């Protein structure tokens, strides 16, 4: 514990306006993150975790309905900043992001080295020569040979492109890196290699990561803390040790039970039904229609985040 948390998120909301109504993608989410800590946000598709990444980096689409809450980075509320201030001082200089399917996020007509160097030139005003030199260093650091800086993205394999994108996210030395499904579409061994790389970077640089994924087993590769997202809300927030061995929220428990494990024998369970639409979530606790431990109260009132143990929060009436 190093005093005030580096990142404090309070009641963050991001709703979209669509033809069918208001989609509550991120619905009053709160959590803290210390320096050097990694928070994994796990959830299934449609739970709002990708929208969470957009909300934190303010990369919003046109049809935003509501975007408010408090996001404090080292004490400063980022939500108060103007677009220009956020772009200049926060995005990529303090918070950067590795997107889902990032191998395709590279510009196919620009050389790899130039793209990695770009954030330095744009944000820190570093002259081109020096920036390219740093880009080559960054490539080396992520395990790609320097010579690839002069190549085009299509000349690199999927794994190398992912490493290049990670280099791009790290080059400005941000405080926080958001990883949104950084290894999807990569084969298992390459995925393990990338995770090894991220572990190394985490240890060497004392960076904070927010690691967004649907793969619970994979999340344990980096997570110090775990937040489980369901229907736009965080239903459980706790330490890795607690979560992977003894999750408390019924959804977390069912989720863990549905993950096939290689090394241990267990009976696999599944969750009947489907995740709710973010347009019209169920009243009360959003998970209650699929929960086998639901009590009448669950359908009536939305449970608050209850601190079950120190820094272990569960949004469930069973723990009231």
């Amino acid at each position: 514990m190093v005093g005030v948390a580096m990142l404090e998120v309070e009641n963050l909301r991001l709703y979209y306006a669509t033809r069918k109504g208001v989609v509550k993608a991120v619905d009053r989410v709160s959590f803290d993150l210390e320096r050097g800590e990694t928070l994994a946000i796990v959830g299934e598709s449609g739970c709002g975790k990708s929208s969470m990444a957009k909300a934190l980096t303010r990369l919003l689409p046109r049809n935003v309905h509501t975007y408010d809450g408090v996001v404090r980075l080292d004490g400063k509320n980022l939500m108060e900043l103007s677009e220009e201030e956020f772009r200049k001082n926060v995005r990529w200089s303090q918070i950067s992001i590795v997107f889902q399917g990032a191998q395709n996020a590279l510009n196919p007509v620009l050389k790899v080295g130039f793209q990695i160097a770009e954030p330095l030139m744009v944000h820190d005003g570093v002259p081109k020569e020096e920036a390219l030199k740093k880009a080559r260093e960054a490539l080396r650091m992520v395990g790609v040979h320097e010579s690839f800086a002069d190549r085009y993205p299509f000349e690199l394999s999927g794994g190398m492109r992912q490493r290049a994108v990670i280099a791009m996210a790290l080059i400005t030395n941000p405080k926080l890196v958001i990883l949104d499904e950084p290894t999807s579409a990569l084969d298992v061994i390459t995925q393990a290699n990338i995770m090894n790389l991220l572990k190394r970077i985490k240890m060497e640089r004392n960076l904070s990561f927010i690691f967004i994924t649907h793969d619970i087993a994979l999340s344990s590769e980096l997570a110090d803390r775990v937040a489980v997202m369901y229907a736009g809300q965080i239903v459980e927030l706790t330490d890795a040790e607690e979560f992977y061995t003894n999750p408390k929220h019924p959804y977390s428990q069912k989720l863990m039970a549905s993950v096939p494990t290689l090394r241990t024998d267990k009976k696999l369970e599944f969750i009947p039904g489907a995740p709710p639409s973010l347009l019209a979530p169920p009243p009360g606790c959003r998970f209650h229609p699929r929960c086998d431990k639901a009590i009448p109260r669950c359908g009536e009132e939305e449970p608050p985040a209850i601190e079950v143990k120190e820094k272990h929060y569960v949004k469930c009436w069973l723990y009231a």
Partner: protein
Amino acid sequence: MVSDVGMEYSLKGIVKELLSYKSGIASVLILALLIGLSVYTVVTIPPEQAIAMWRGENNMWIENPRNAAPEWITYFVHKNLPKTIKVASWDRRFGVVKAVAPIPDTTLKKIHIEVSFDYNYDDFPSEVNVFFKAKFNASKTTPLIKMYWVKPDGTKIPITEFTMRDPDQILYISVDQQIYSGLVAWLQKEKGVKPYKTVTTQEILFGKISPSMEQGKVEVEKGTYKLVVDATTYNEGDDVDLKLVVYGKIYGIAGTDHLRRPLIIALLWGTPVALAFGLTASLAISIIQLFIATISGWYAGIVDSIIQRITEIYMIIPFLPFLIMMAAFYKLDIWTILAVVIVLSIFGAGIKSTRALVMQIKEYPYVEAAKAYGASDARIITLYIIPKILPPLVPGLIGSVPGFVFLEAALSFLGLGDPYLPTWGKIINDARNNGALYKGYYYWILEPSFMLILTALAFAMLGFALDKIVNPRLREM
């Protein structure tokens, strides 16, 4: 997680969504109007009748003014422009007098006809004609006619005196040189006014006689006018009747052209022609291209190569010059033009995009699944691929209709279209050939142009709206 296979298209759903766009509503309304007009026109004026009308058979338009503007032009001109006045000696109404006085002991008859009418317009008539309907034997002595003009103040002006040649003779008062000289002479002698050479017969007949005529300025004299005819017939059974037509300057809802034909006929009839031509061409070409592109895309290999090479050669051939050449060498009727247009377009560029789509869909999982459960190639093409490529084709189909409408109009405009059908392009062609813009007959050009633009606009808007529906990526959230 959801793959990009597209949504289900139900007709109701599409219509509902279409109407949620302003352009959708507007285009549907305009098209409904155009289709309604077409149906109405074809029902009330069958094609043979329309062609006959357009040929002006039997001089059917002789009582229409030439190059008359549409009646609504008075709102813009703020002048009370004259409408055509027709009075016949056989009309039973106030102001028409016919007295037949036989001369005793002879077969001679003295017929006195007076035809009067009110003239309260602010402008002069465009023409004045008298149509005789007489009965006599041309080989014997024919009736003698003496004609006078009586102005509202009672001034009686002699117009002409002649013997009839033909029972249905027409006296073109306003263009007859002799009558004109006679009137000028009368003016000089009786009123001491020598009218400037630009003063017309109508101006003399209907104008205030004043010295200003010498500068060419004539004011309309409003009031009741009378045409008086004293006829003498010589034989038993002879009779003289006449109809005076004072031609106005405005006519109907659309005006008339140089051959006195009401433009509304061509405007109305142009609608079904334009729609039928545009839609038929578009539909036929789309369907044929669909067929060719599907074969090309599905079988790939050498079949594909051949078809693509043919397509490329086709695309290089200059379409319009070719069409013009064909039309210039042969007198083509509209169906042949349509056929030629279709044949010249079937291997067009549309094939390339449809083929690309077919090749894409060919790789879709559900096509592979169909192969796995034993569907034949033919079944897959008709039941699995074509339903998928049809919806994206529809906006293109609709959007290409204006092109064909304009094509037909352009051909007609160049004088290469169907020479007998009244179409919008034909009107513009006539207008141009008769110097419409020089003479200030703007409506002659504007009316068919307006119809063309309206049609094009409707289809274009419909095409865009449908495109937005069919292609979800173009939508706004």
